[in-house]
Structure formats: structure tokens, C-alpha cells
């Protein structure tokens, strides 16, 4: 009797937890669903009162208007190119730095380690005016250079790889040395293949981070040629006196799909990477 009661209580608890989680899921995902819904509605449909959350019949018109008026093809291309280049740049530089800190002894090691870590303390707003002035001196304003090169260093990545490499069994390097393998061969043939999960996790984090940048591209990337999707969508808001929400949401949906795909594809690595980062 008592036992049965317990089981019933447990079931009830589980059921309520499930309901709460479904509600949470709805709250968390609703804005994205709503954006998709409005992107399918015609003007007449989304101006109805009260607003309805049912798909409409304007999907083709909205997306084609957003695509043409917002020049979305170019914007998405720029965002993709810049995010890919920076993500790979950061991965390569961080692997090299992490590897060097773990597998070499050299003068100034601690100094250089601090130098790379310090980037964490210097977010863009702290150095924005001089960095902008540097861009204009280099003639980098409105070029891909300004949107990629300054982001190549990564404290997060360096720490992530350094930590991973410290956990590689000592015997690996010992064996390599006995076999006369030099450090770069060891890096290429042994260490990099062991870094796959971390590479994927870092790729995910950095791709999304760069894709979502706003302040820097607003200042140094505001020409047709190099403009990214975040800034382009803001322009879509500003061009008309009244916002065409359905067209804007079409652009918004297109602008959020690429990072979302990256997230979905590499999510398992992120969780593995995180649990790895949690280990003491």
C-alpha cells in the first residue's frame, strides 16, 4: 500500500516535471517559431487584430522580397566567409599555442602565456577607438581584413587545447622521441587527430560568436561588399518608414539558420568539450 503510494507519487512528480519542461521548451523556442510564422504571413495576415499564430500564405513573396531588397545573398555569403575564416584561424593559432605551452620549455613561457590570456580582459569596447584608428591607418576599413585578422587570437582556444594536451598520456611523447619523431611530426600525426572533439567545440563557439558580432562590423564593415547579415537586417528595418515585419522576419530566419545548423551538427562535441573543461 505504502509502496504503491510512493510509486504513484513518483509518477505524478514525473508527469508534472514533464509538463513543466514542455512549458519551458515552449517559452524558450516560441520566439523562433513566431519569427518563422510571421515570415509566412502576408501584410493583411499579420496586421489582423488580435494577432494569430498560424502560418500564412505569403511565404514566397516575403522571402523573395527580403532576398532582393536586403541583398541577402551577399550578406549571407559575407557572414559565412568571415565566420569560417575566423573560426579556422582561431583553431590553428590556438592549437599551435596550446601545443607549444605543453610540449616545450623555453624562456619567457609564462610571460607569453599571460600575454595570450590577457585578451580575455580586453573586450572590444576597451580598445575600440584606437583599433578603429589602426584600421583606417592600414586602409582596412570596409575590407575583409578588418573583419577577420584582429580576431585570430583566442585565449579560450589556447586554454582548451593546452588543457587537453596536458592530459595526453606521457608515454605518447616518450614513444615518439624514442622513435625519433620530431615535435612537428608528433603534432601533426598524433596530437591533432586527438583534438577532434575540441576542434569541433571551438569551431561551434567561434563560428557563432563571429556570426553574431555587431558592433565591430557596424563600424568597419559598412559597405555593400563586406556587410554582414546582422547589419544588413538593421538596414532592412531602417529603409522603410514603417517596418515590414513579415519581410524582416524572413531575413531574420535566414540569418539565424546557418549558426543554428552549426550548433545542431556540432552540439555533441560541445557537450563533450564542456564536460572535458569541467574536469579538474
Amino acid at each position, binding site marked *: 500500500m505504502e509502496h504503491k503510494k510512493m510509486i504513484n507519487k513518483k509518477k505524478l512528480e*514525473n508527469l508534472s516535471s514533464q509538463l513543466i519542461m514542455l512549458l519551458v521548451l515552449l517559452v*524558450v523556442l516560441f520566439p523562433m517559431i513566431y519569427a518563422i510564422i510571421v515570415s509566412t504571413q502576408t501584410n493583411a495576415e499579420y496586421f489582423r487584430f*488580435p494577432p494569430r499564430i498560424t502560418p500564412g500564405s505569403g511565404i514566397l513573396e516575403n522571402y523573395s522580397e527580403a532576398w532582393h531588397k536586403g541583398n541577402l545573398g551577399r550578406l549571407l555569403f559575407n557572414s559565412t566567409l568571415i565566420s569560417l575564416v575566423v573560426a579556422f584561424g582561431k583553431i590553428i593559432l590556438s592549437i599551435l599555442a596550446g601545443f607549444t605551452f605543453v610540449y616545450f620549455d623555453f624562456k619567457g613561457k609564462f610571460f607569453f602565456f599571460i600575454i595570450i590570456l590577457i585578451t580575455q580582459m580586453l573586450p572590444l569596447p576597451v580598445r575600440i577607438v584606437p583599433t578603429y*584608428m589602426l584600421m583606417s591607418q592600414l586602409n582596412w576599413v570596409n575590407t575583409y581584413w578588418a573583419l577577420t585578422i584582429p580576431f585570430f587570437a583566442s585565449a579560450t582556444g589556447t586554454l582548451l587545447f593546452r588543457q587537453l594536451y596536458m592530459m595526453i598520456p606521457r608515454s605518447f*611523447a616518450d614513444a615518439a622521441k624514442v622513435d625519433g619523431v620530431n615535435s612537428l611530426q608528433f603534432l601533426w600525426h598524433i596530437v591533432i587527430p586527438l583534438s577532434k572533439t575540441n576542434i569541433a567545440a571551438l569551431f561551434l563557439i567561434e563560428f557563432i560568436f563571429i556570426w553574431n558580432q555587431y558592433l565591430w562590423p557596424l563600424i568597419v564593415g559598412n559597405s555593400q561588399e563586406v556587410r554582414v547579415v546582422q547589419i544588413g537586417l538593421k538596414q532592412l528595418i531602417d529603409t522603410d518608414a514603417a517596418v515590414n515585419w513579415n519581410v524582416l522576419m524572413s531575413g531574420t530566419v535566414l540569418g539565424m539558420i546557418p549558426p543554428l545548423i552549426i550548433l545542431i551538427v556540432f552540439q555533441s562535441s560541445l557537450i563533450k568539450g564542456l564536460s572535458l573543461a569541467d574536469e579538474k
Partner: protein
Amino acid sequence: MQTKFKSSKWLPYLLLSPSVIIVFIFFIIPSSESLYYSFFRQNITGTRKLFVGFENFTRLFMDPEYIDSLIRSFLFTVIVVVFGLTISLGIAMIANKKLRFFNMYRTLLIWPYALSPAITGMIWALMFNPTIGVASNLLNNIFGISFNYINNSTHAMIFICVAAIWKMLGYNIIFFLSGLQNVPPEILEASIIDGANAWRRFRTILLPLISPTTFFLIIMNTLYAFFQQFGLLHVVTEGGPGRATDLLVYKLYRDGFISMNTGYASAQSIILLLIVAAVTFIQFKSSEKSVFYGT
């Protein structure tokens, strides 16, 4: 400690040089220049420059707009951190109870992490649009509140807080979940079951056990609240109505790039640097053992 490779003397430096060069050119030198310019009155083209000592700083702290912006930024940060983390921890504790579909929940909850503050802003602006927004209509029908973030300063502040908290929810939940996974299930059960002592157990047993995660998230969310809001503000409120949502980064942008007031903007950069330094210092002091992991 790993076995070290012997190599020519310059190889380690060669391997480090790309990172170190980038850090020097784009981080360390510009930051030092921020400090340097903060002592000058100058326009952005650099044609005229006048040494003024601490005048930019004294002007800052005499400027009611700046003081206001400072207070609003701290208020915003506290709200985002406290509410964001409390809600996330609550959700994570529910989701962690060996729930069926656990993996599905975890997969879907992180989705907003992929959205930019700007895009988040656009979607939330639509939802809370005073006339056609589905959320503002709901508020009006159920609570009789006519929510208007465009005209009402308080509503605007609430609006950016809610949008900013929403964007980080998934990220926070995932980290809390991975923290909770290391807590023995009995302790967790005991702290969740309703009862007079549940809160006590939660506070004295569970909370200390997940404190490294909590602490890490407090730091991350603080930096997020201070430095990642520009897109949201620029897209939705442009600092308004009036200066109601004119947070520090937005004010810096206005002074540096709209009014072209280099010295004044640089002084604001230095204040921001002091804020990051304080956060970093606290982080170092309190979590020398726990592992650093940033975005």
C-alpha cells in the same frame, strides 16, 4: 607534466608568434592607446590634440548622462545575472531528474544560444510590438497592461532585460546541467523533495556543490551583460526612449563614433577596462582551482 621536446631555440617562439603578434597589434597596443588618449582632448581624425590630464574622467563623473548610464548598466547586469541564473538553475534541476526525453530537452534548450543579440532584438521587438505583437496583446488581454517599450522607459528596460535573459537561458541551463550531473543523485533528490527543510538542504548542501559552475556562470553572465548588448540596443531601442536604455557600451559608441569625441570615449573605455579587471580579479581570487572556460 609532459615530456618536453628538444628543438632549435626558435621553434617555440615561431609557433607562438602568430598569436602573440595578433595580441600585441590588436589588443595590447590599442588598449594602451585608449589609456593614452583618455588624457587628451582630440577628434577622431587626430588633427588636433590637447593634453588635458584627468579632465575627461572628471567630466565623465560630472556628466549626469554617464552616471545614469553607469547605474542602469549595473542594474541591468544584476537583473540579468540574478534572474537569469535563478530561472536556469530551477529549470536545470527539474530537467536533471532522470527525465524521459532528457536529451531532447537538452538539445532544444540550447538553440537560442545560436541567435545574435541583434536578431533576438528583432524578434522580441515584433512580439512586444505595442499594436501587432502577440505578447503585448496577451499582456493586455490577461493583465490589462498596455506594454509599450517604445514610449515607456520602465517598459523599455524590462524589455531588454527579458530579451537578454532569454538569450542566455539555454547556455546557462546546459552548464547547470553538467554541474548537477556531478552531484550524487541522493543529495539532489533530498534537496528537491518538498518539505520544511528543502530550502535549507538546497542552500547548505546542493548550492555549495555546484558553486564552481554557478561562479563561472556569474562571471560569464556579468561579462555578457556588460559587453554583448550593443546589437540588441542598436536594433531595438537605440538607447531610448530618452536615455532609458543607454547602457555603457552604447554611450561609448555614441560619444566615440557619432560625436567623434575620441578622448572622452577613451576615458569610458578605461572605466570599462576597470570593470573587466575587477571581474577578472574576483574570478582569479575565488576560483584558482576551478577551470576557466570562456566564450
